């Protein structure tokens, strides 16, 4: 990889973009059954639940 990382070369390391395919309603992974309609409109997470923060 070239050390000189200009804009174009930065993009080299990002994988090719793709059309989004697949079922947008991902298989539920939570252990408890959720009411599907509530899942669609509101999702909750702790502020600690984002990756990339100390």
């Amino acid at each position: 990889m070239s050390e000189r990382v200009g804009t174009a070369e930065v993009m080299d390391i990002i994988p090719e973009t793709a059309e989004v395919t697949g079922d947008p309603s991902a298989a539920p992974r939570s252990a408890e059954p959720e009411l599907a309609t509530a899942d669609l409109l509101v999702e909750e997470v702790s502020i600690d639940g984002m990756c990339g923060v100390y």
Partner: protein
Amino acid sequence: MTLPLVEQFGYGLDAPICLTWELTYACNLSCVHCLSSSGRRDPRELSTAECRAVIDELERMQVFYVNIGGGEPTVRSDFWELVDYATAHHVGVKFSTNGVKITQEVARRLAASDYVDVQISLDGATADVNDAVRGAGSYATALRAMRHLAEAGFRGFKISVVMTRQNVGQLDDFKAIADRFGAQLRLTRLRPSGRGADVWDELHPTAAQQRQLYDWLVSRGEQVLTGDSFFHLAAYGDALPGLNLCGAGRVVCLIDPVGDVYACPFAIHDSFLAGNVRGPGGFASVWRDSELFAGLRRPQAGGACQSCSAYDSCRGGCMAAKFFTGLPLDGPDPECVKGHGERALAAAPGALAPRPSGDHSHRSRPLGPAGPAAAAGPVPVSIGARPPADGGPVAARRPSDPRAAQRPDRGCDESPLAGFRPLT
């Protein structure tokens, strides 16, 4: 029917939800795995006024929360002023510290303030395990800080542990420490970032330990935090609490002590540098307009992982972990639970992993293949000369190579200090 969040974020948020802000590279410790290779202050640190300007921007953008770290952020003389300024301007603060400045008085002050959370770093439930990573006396410092916070009535402060081969066996003990002080335990993933690059091979958990950790976390549910750092383990089965996706450049980012904006704190490297807050448009324009972040926000193809049944769960794992082990970003995580990462690493012997872009380590503990614990040899000196025009390959370099301590110019670099490297 609404799209899952991971697709929604593809359109880009106008502001991060939260972010990490490393206030200084100065640190009283020299932890062997430091993701920011901290130790010595960088003379180009943002001034107090510049920091206030960043906070003003975060307020305007409605960034809810900032995790202030470093280095050791409390060694900055304006640390408390900046924390107060942030909370007065509707930006919640959690700061990460090794505890060195958490006196009884400071603890009382913290317990009395709203919207400031504290996170104490600890990497061993016993002094021997902890101090092997963080240095002699660091365990005592951390426990003292915890005691002060507990005595001051600060409930629910965080104890944050980086999981290693050496401490996975202490999970219950860590929980006991947290319970003892009325704190909340947080376990995070070791990445091969910063000085972590030099110790990752020997310190990252084994596959069996990783499974043990996952099972333990699942059994603790929301009691134990993870910073969503184990989303690659969702491939085992149930996802752990959290967004379960890479937030870098999408919902979070890093502002470093000299104002550089990176996709995340585990990716301090030119390849993940989006811009600098000192540029004309400040932080907001870096977040909204940088090419790097635009690329990260577009839906990613699975690449080599596309055909794997677990891809929907793990989404290929951690970008930084792949990058700093020399693996392609569109392939498996080095710790892929199905073993694809191990196989990929074994199949590419001699691949040169990128080195971290900067090294602010204390001079006695430089970055390098010999490891930060090996203090032998001459002190590396930054000559200050600009790198050769042809750049040269990004490859594993010894610290004595002047290019190791410097960054090349980039055509799109907004920083007025591009290419300038004072002797440090």
